[in-house]
């Protein structure tokens, strides 16, 4: 079974600085998908970024980028120029290819506080 681990339950960062959230996963599959979701205080879950394991290039969405290390089974999220609106719970998620129901396995989450 696949597992996703987020080892940092809570983190904080000063506004305008950069922060990196860690995520590791365990799988025997060679092709899969990885995701980062953001859950702000409103509790709406929002997809931040998606990575396909067969692509070498790290995904980027504006201030959000990932460092995907396939051999190390690591998928960290870097937030540049942190803003107060980035304060949220962040969840890392994993999915194998073509699994029944496109199921995602989620990590336990990292609570990020951006300080003014």
């Amino acid at each position, binding site marked *: 079974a696949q597992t996703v681990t987020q080892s940092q339950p809570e983190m904080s960062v000063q506004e305008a600085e950069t922060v990196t959230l860690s995520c590791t996963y365990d799988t025997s599959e060679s092709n899969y998908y990885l995701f980062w979701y953001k859950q702000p205080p409103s*509790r*709406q*879950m929002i997809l931040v970024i998606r990575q396909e394991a067969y692509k070498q290039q790290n995904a980027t969405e504006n201030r959000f980028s990932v460092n995907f290390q396939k051999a190390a089974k690591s998928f960290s999220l870097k937030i540049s120029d942190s803003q107060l609106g980035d304060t949220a719970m962040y969840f890392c998620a994993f999915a194998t290819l073509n699994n029944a129901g*496109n199921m995602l396995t989620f990590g336990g989450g990292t609570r990020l506080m951006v300080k003014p």
Partner: protein
Amino acid sequence: SQTIHQWPATLVQPVGSPLSLECTVEGTSNPNLYWYRQAAGRGLQLLFYSVGIGQISSEVPQNLSASRPQDRQFILSSKKLLLSDSGFYLCAWSAGPGTNYGYTFGSGTRLTVV
């Protein structure tokens, strides 16, 4: 474009009362549908998922049940609520077989059982 609607947003129910939470998806057909529960400040617990009408898979045996009477409708129910059923419930959908673009979540229902 695809949208997902979940209601109600907030619900306070007495112990022993029934529950019905509804989720509908627009703009797509044959979606995969999911119900998750989240305790305050905690992670996501998958309750049920469905890959088609009438097809329900349960991940955690409990006081809840799910049904999918129509292609884009997913309902979470209970006959008698327990205090432990309190939490934040999220519905989500994903596209059917093929490339996985992840889930799109509804806005959630905050359930308090008193």
